[in-house]
């Protein structure tokens, strides 16, 4: 009886001795699940012109990570998320090499040059997209209309023209994942329910874009709520606000910081859309806010318990 300890070895480790079952991999799987509605809608509207780019991006992203790490195919799952998110920002029918270059850039330049998941400053999928946008601007803005797959312009080229209801369901031209607002909202609702995102970043982003879109246009100031809604629903704003800006690694951790980050994304997006050369501003708005995230976290540190102002 008294020699129990000698006979048997017990594990000694630091408290706490119980852990929540949540893991990084489970979170990434949930993000993939949340993207299913957007992928399905893209597949319905653009058929093989959507399915092939999504599969190529997914495989290329995971393969790149496998080559870099030389272990595991799925690992923490973040490469798969990056691949699918990148694909959703591409125009339908993108060439295979465009997808591969985008995915490889996203994983290497977006993630591993910084030391891998958790250490990256910028959203990897958007880094991949930015590389493609800077290198092949024409191909990245060659749109197809849904269902009949004819060449067409993005609704953003003609502000206010597309019907709000079409923007909502996704019956408009645009990148694979950015056409259907309802599919994106369903996915985001799942992430909210699971607690992986909160309202602050999407709320700040969409709210500020709605206000700016309502009161501002290239012509001057006014008040047009339809234009505000149009700006929220058109282009990549919802995809960016719900899935890109909410990327945990590259957004602030403090509650106030998240709100500031969201508002900053919204304001920059609208400034680029209204006054900039690009019709779309989501990519660069989020990348710029990614860059200032450490500053926001520093500036919005919560008051600690019992803190006495000096």
């Amino acid at each position, binding site marked *: 009886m008294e020699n129990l300890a000698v006979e048997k070895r017990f594990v000694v480790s630091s408290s706490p001795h119980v852990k*929540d079952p*949540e893991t990084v991999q489970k*979170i990434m799987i949930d993000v993939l699940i949340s993207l299913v509605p957007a992928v399905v809608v893209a597949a319905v509207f653009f058929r093989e012109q959507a399915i092939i780019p999504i599969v190529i991006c997914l495989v290329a992203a995971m393969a790149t990570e496998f080559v870099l790490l030389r272990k595991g195919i799925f690992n*923490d799952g973040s490469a798969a998320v990056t691949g699918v998110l990148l694909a959703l920002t591409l125009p339908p029918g993108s060439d295979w090499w465009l997808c591969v270059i985008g995915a490889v850039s996203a994983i290497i330049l977006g993630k591993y040059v910084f030391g891998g*998941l*958790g250490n990256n400053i910028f959203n990897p999928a958007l880094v991949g997209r930015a590389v493609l946008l800077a290198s092949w601007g024409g191909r990245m803005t060659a749109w197809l209309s849904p269902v009949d797959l004819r060449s067409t312009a993005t609704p953003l080229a003609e502000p206010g023209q597309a019907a709000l209801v079409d923007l909502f369901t996704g019956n408009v031209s645009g990148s694979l994942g950015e056409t259907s607002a309802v599919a994106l909202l369903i996915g985001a609702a799942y992430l909210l329910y699971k607690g992986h995102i909160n309202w602050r970043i999407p709320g700040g982003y969409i709210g500020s874009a709605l206000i700016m879109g309502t009161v501002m246009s290239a012509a001057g100031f006014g008040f047009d709520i339809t234009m505000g809604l149009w700006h929220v629903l058109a282009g990549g704003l919802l995809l960016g606000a719900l899935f890109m800006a909410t990327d945990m*690694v590259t957004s602030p951790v403090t509650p106030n910081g998240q709100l500031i980050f969201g508002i900053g994304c919204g304001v920059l997006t609208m400034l680029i859309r209204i006054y900039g050369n690009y019709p779309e501003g989501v990519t660069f708005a989020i990348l710029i806010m990614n860059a200032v995230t450490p500053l926001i976290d520093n500036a919005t540190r*919560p008051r600690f*318990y019992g803190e006495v102002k000096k």
Partner: protein
Amino acid sequence: MTTKTFKGGTHPPHDKPAAGKPIVTAEAPSRVVIPLSQHSGKPCEPLVKVGDEVKMGQKIGDVDAFISAPIHSSVSGKVVEIAPYFNPGGNGPMCVVIESDGKDTWADEVKPNKPLEELTGEEIIKITKEAGVVGLGGAAFPTHVKLIPPEGGLEALILNGAECEPYLTCDHRLMVERAEDMIYGAKAMMKALQARKCYIGIEVNKPDAISATRDAIGGDPDIEVVELEVKYPQGSGKQLVTAVMNGLEVPSGKRSTDVGIQVSNTGTAIAIADAIKTGRPLIDTVMTVAGSGINESANILVRVGTIFSEIAEQCGGLKDNSAKIIMGGPMMGNAVPSLDFPVCKATSGVLIFTEDEVVIEEYLPCIKCARCVDVCPAFIMPNFISNAGEQNDYAAAKKLHVEECIECGSCAFVCPAKRPIVQWIRLCKSAIWAMSK
């Protein structure tokens, strides 16, 4: 009535397998190993020598220091050895080893005191000190020091019956079974502290304890049960003050008495009641034995100095696949390498986990999901501190206010990357402390 709580915190699985089990008394040990340091403060010097006959309740250790508490024999018998003994704290304190004569003869000085109404505050403090009462919530701070009233008395005494750690049920059972004595002890503490009010904070998952306590209070307008939300770490001193006193915070670097509040454990109040009513010093404690690795969970009254492995035997023994021993609760308790050391005054429980519960996971880099920031009851940023700790950047950790951490473990509990955040925080704290010397 709405339940009160603090901001932050988390919900570990609330396994309390022994909650419905009445307190049983452990078999009288044939030999006890009584450490001479069972409290925070100065260790005691032995008052006996090898070969001495001692009686139960006889003082065997004391020291002339303000922050200390005397030690008493928990059996009657013969001192056979005085030597340092293994202790999971690692310091190997001097222990008095006594062979019991099996008679449990009480020492002559153990006799009832005057009733509470006739005692003065100073007398209550003296009785508490002589009985060796220490805080039974875990810190084992000598209680008589905490009973010294501040200038102008105290706003309120808060008795901590939250017991927010999973598994532990010793406070719960004591409240259910000994509520009358707890209220008696509370009144004694109020008298010593000149406290105007007494609040007894109990989490609402213990309705039987709440009703027993309310019955024991009767019509006393100065004592009140405060129902608390079930949330970890509700039983942490500062968080309890904030919950009970409607958001009042204890300023950084100060004690709760600086804002007019004293906090004590419910079991401590019962120990004081015992000391006054019977003269009995603190020579036994109620602890919870639980976890999937033990055959029979129990709330068990154990003499100080009993070896843990004897208690485990009385609870049906350890299962073959037992793999981890935890002193205290699963959130803040310490894992220890064996059961071969003695029970102390402030021992609240021992948990035995099986192999499948003891998975040492490989941790990943922080993905900044902010779960830890959301749950931290000290409102610091555990994610950035863990990065600083990982890189041995103690200056950065200090800038992030690592010293405000109460080590409740909520951050490491919720972390999806399984980062050993508390471990790094302790590393930072001790490095900062060493640098400041």
